[in-house]
């Protein structure tokens, strides 16, 4: 069935913009011209790809697993026999060879292998948390903004309540509380060490940060001509939300917030796991690697620098790419 309201509104927009292109296509064209944003987008894709290939690296290049312990082994580095962990407990530094490329940790585990496996967890948590945030923020933001009145008042006060906590503090409190006994969802039980727990915690904590701008956007969208047109055509409110409001959001602020939240969630996962309230052992993540290595920073800085710099590269590339998306969707942007 043809969406009449959309036809009406798009013909209006065609007149005002003077071209037949949808805002989405315009934005994509602008994004393609933004070389810096594209460059960082490719970097992030590479990070994701390398982490996905962790088993290949582990089996075919490093010949070890993320939790395999080589504490009493001796390997050859540049022809010299070197213990993986020496007699006073210090791990070997980066060899830049297939084995122990980034060195080992105190337990004789290969840092490079753990970096990739840990990256899978960090990225997976980042993506899942972002999806939780976006779904929660859409539910709250669209409902509050579209129905206004007392619905808006109640939902906004609820968001204010979560907003009152510093993100890290609330996440740590929830993380500790849930890590102890896991979560009973009724239909499924999550154990305390599941990575779904930090994903949910981080996702929930950031809901208000995205729900507020969505609510504001919906408040203005519902006054636009195409929504009036849909109302006059007798569309139900639910149908207006799904056929008019949501498509507009997904072609404007949703992609921007998705990218920014992805970076934020990856960063918060690291802080949370560093505090011991995120990913639980034996699972690795960039945050737990930072936590494990923090005690030896004075003598083996590679233990924290390797996961730390990887984390910065991942978050930075998403942030810059996300800003590229923001500029591309910004109607005031001069680039066409």
């Amino acid at each position: 069935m043809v969406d009449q309201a959309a036809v009406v509104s798009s013909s209006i927009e065609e007149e005002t913009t003077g071209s037949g292109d949808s805002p989405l296509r315009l934005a994509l064209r602008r994004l393609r011209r933004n070389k810096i944003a594209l460059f960082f987008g490719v970097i992030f894709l590479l990070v994701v790809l390398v982490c996905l290939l962790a088993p290949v690296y582990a089996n075919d290049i490093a010949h070890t697993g993320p939790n395999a312990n080589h504490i009493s082994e001796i390997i050859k580095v540049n022809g010299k026999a070197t213990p993986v962990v020496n007699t006073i407990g210090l791990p070997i530094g980066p060899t830049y060879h297939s084995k122990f490329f980034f060195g080992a940790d105190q337990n004789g585990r290969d840092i490079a292998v753990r970096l990739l496996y840990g990256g899978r967890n960090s990225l997976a948590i980042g993506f899942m948390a972002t999806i939780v945030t976006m779904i929660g923020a859409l539910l709250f933001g669209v409902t509050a903004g579209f129905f206004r009145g007392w619905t808006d008042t109640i939902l906004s006060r609820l968001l204010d309540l979560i907003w009152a906590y510093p993100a890290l503090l609330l996440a740590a409190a929830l993380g500790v509380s849930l890590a102890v006994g896991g979560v009973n969802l009724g239909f499924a039980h999550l154990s305390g060490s599941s990575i779904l727990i930090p994903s949910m915690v981080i996702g929930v904590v950031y809901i208000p940060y995205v729900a507020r701008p969505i609510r504001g956007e919906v408040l203005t969208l519902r006054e636009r001509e195409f929504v009036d047109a849909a109302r006059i055509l007798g569309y139900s409110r639910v149908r207006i939300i799904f056929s008019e409001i949501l498509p507009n959001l997904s072609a404007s602020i949703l992609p921007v917030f998705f990218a920014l939240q992805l970076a934020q969630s990856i960063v918060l996962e690291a802080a949370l796991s560093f505090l011991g309230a995120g990913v639980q052992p034996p699972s690795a993540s960039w945050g737990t690697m930072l936590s494990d290595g923090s005690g030896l920073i004075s003598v083996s800085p590679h233990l924290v620098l390797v996961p730390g710099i990887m984390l910065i590269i991942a978050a930075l590339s998403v942030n810059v790419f996300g800003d590229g998306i923001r500029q591309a969707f910004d109607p005031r942007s001069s680039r066409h």
Partner: protein
Amino acid sequence: MYLLIFTLKRLASAVVVLFAVSVLTFLIFFAIPNGNPALRLAGRTATPADIHNVEVAYGFDKPIYVQYERTMKQIFTGRIQSYTQHLSVFSQIKRGLPATLSVAIGAAIVWMLIGIVLGVIGALRAGKATDVAVSTVSFVGISAPSFVVGFILLDLFVYKTHIFPQVGYVPITQNPVSWLTHMILPWFSMAFLYIGIYAQVLRSSVLDAVTTDAVRTARAKGLSPAKVMIKHVLRVSLIPIVSLWGLDFAGALAGTTLVIEVVFNLQGVGQYTYNAIGALDVPPILVVTILGAFFVVLMNAVVDILYAVLDPRIRAGKG
């Protein structure tokens, strides 16, 4: 009169939020967790009778609202104790507070000052190179967790070059110079996130302010550029920054100190909380979370009221 009513209204709504925060925080620790807390408290070798004794002693057998009332009473009379060592939570927090305040206040001053300087420079020489520099700083700032910045600074300036002393906290009353040298790296690690953001916000508000009539008039009457900048431009453009600063300071004090204190071994409230998280010791985390959120809520109210004092247009609208 308007201002008084606005202030009272704002404080009343803050009190409601404070109550809600106390309930939610309590529920996070006492209703959400799966499993009996008495099991952990009683230890591994506990008999069913031991577990029952713990339940009765801590009131876990009572209805949830009775437990809430009891816990809040313990908190607000300052009698609450940790599970593991049975030490008073408030005396431990008091002991850590000087270090926590030192790092948070210092960092807030650092990011404010550097942010203003960079923002003004960015506005005065608006152009490609400065824009790129400021946005690079802010992108790296929001992408690098403060504790990772802390580790990098620690490696560069303490372990590789020995410019700054080893980690730890020296009270300002004991040796002000040593206090300062121990504080500089934590300050910059914490401030790094905000410097770029503040510079960007200030830069755009300065650029807005210089095109106003007031500034044009000030220039026309022959005021020197420096005086125009300080008396007319900065005074207006600092208002949004100051309110931002209040909120970020509250968030940093109650949030970021957690990780920064651990990296630099500052033994403040953040590290106390960190240790409690490691031991799954609920009371310290509960109290710190409530106090942290209280501080954020109160700072929010103070900022709103200050804003109304500074900008009469807000008072006129509905509160």
